[in-house]
């Protein structure tokens, strides 16, 4: 099976606040379930994005 690597970290949401990283505490409560869910959702979004031809530009 082809190795696909790992999503190491997901920081959900936008942070409008002055220099403070906001942590949504509910994700912590749900532990591994939150990790699995975020990995699946974010992974799907990333792979969907990279399938579109216009996304093939390299990063910064």
């Amino acid at each position, binding site marked *: 099976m*082809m*190795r*696909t*690597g*790992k*999503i*190491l*970290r*997901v*920081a*959900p*949401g*936008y*942070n*409008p*606040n*002055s*220099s*403070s*990283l*906001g*942590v*949504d*505490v*509910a*994700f*912590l*409560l749900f*532990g*591994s379930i*939150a*990790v699995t869910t*975020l990995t699946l*959702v*974010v992974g799907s*979004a*990333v*792979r969907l*994005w*990279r399938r579109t031809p*216009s*996304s*093939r530009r*390299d*990063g*910064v």
Partner: protein
Amino acid sequence: MASDPPRFRYERFGGIVALSRPRSVAYLDREYARSIGFHDHPRWRGSAALGDGPLSAPTEVHLVLSRRCSAGCTGCYVGATPDGPALSEIDARAAIDRLAEMGVFHVALGGGEAVDLPYLLDVARHARRRGLVPNLTTSGLPVSDMFAREAAAVFGQINVSVDGLGAEYSRARGYDGFARAERALQLLRARTPHVGVNCVVSRDNADRLGPVVAWARSLRLSEVELLRFKPTGRGAGIFADRDLTPRQARLIYPRALWLGLRHHIRVKLDCSFAPMIFAWRPSRRVADFLGVLGCAGGDVLASIMPDGQWIGCSFGGPSEGHFRDPSVWERGFGAFRDFTTHAPEPCASCEYLALCRGGCRVVAAAAAGDWWQPDPGCPRVQRWKATHPKEPIGSSGPPPNHKLPVVA
């Protein structure tokens, strides 16, 4: 607003992708980045471990557009005044350009009262054009219906500062502005769902956060972010009276959890509350995955002040150099980045050190009198002090020649 295309930035461990659907910033390892079509990069030399050094650029930057505000909040952490300094529009745009070149994803525009600046929306639109997501914090006092309509079209998230309801707002801020803040929230919420509340938690309101969260829910807001009271600006003089009691500090994490579940709204804690979260011993793996970090100044985040100077955190720290100097990010921020390697006890033996990073440096500097001491509000630090009464918490600090240039 249409969703923005994702953006990717190479990092030593692989890369970071910023998404607008779902709104998130995801760190990918090299293998994952390769699997979605990114190629090997010069940054992929050496260690591939996340956390083995600072990021190549912050993921978000707080652009402090001004120290100008007429509200006069008693605890204003930038000590804003009606005629305080402000970054000019030209400089603000140039700062945005610099952040775009660095690959920064999000910029938090604030002050002072950023909404008072006539060029705020133009700067935010410029950020959008350069691929950054602009977000905004405001007191809400100057928000009009026209501003709400235009702001909703450009900002990713807008939070209004509200530390209590009715008379509690007046007690916390020193003036009666609750009705106007509530009106601002209603105007903004009528235009966008991405509106929330920033609530500074102090000794006075820590036991009465429920009504604020319930009220935010009743306005159909998206989040309540709880922020620790900081001993900076005008807050420095009243910190001793406003700082949380040890019991309040210990309970802030379960309280935030309960309030979020009870009222079905996202409740967030700011990074200075990290020691209070880690005191409950959550899974390190999960906390790391979710980016639950203590002081991430000079790494994940940083600030640019109204004089154009980089600073690790807008609450404090040394000026690192002007934003126009492209070498600052690489060579600066030692006051933030070096704590974990110099951490004294009890931080040195704490299993959460790599995540917590000693809690809030600004609180340590103001309350303990030493930038390099552990955060005195940390429950573990307080327990350690109680069990080691004769052993002062010493500052291991940086070595005496720290950051001095090598003379050939």
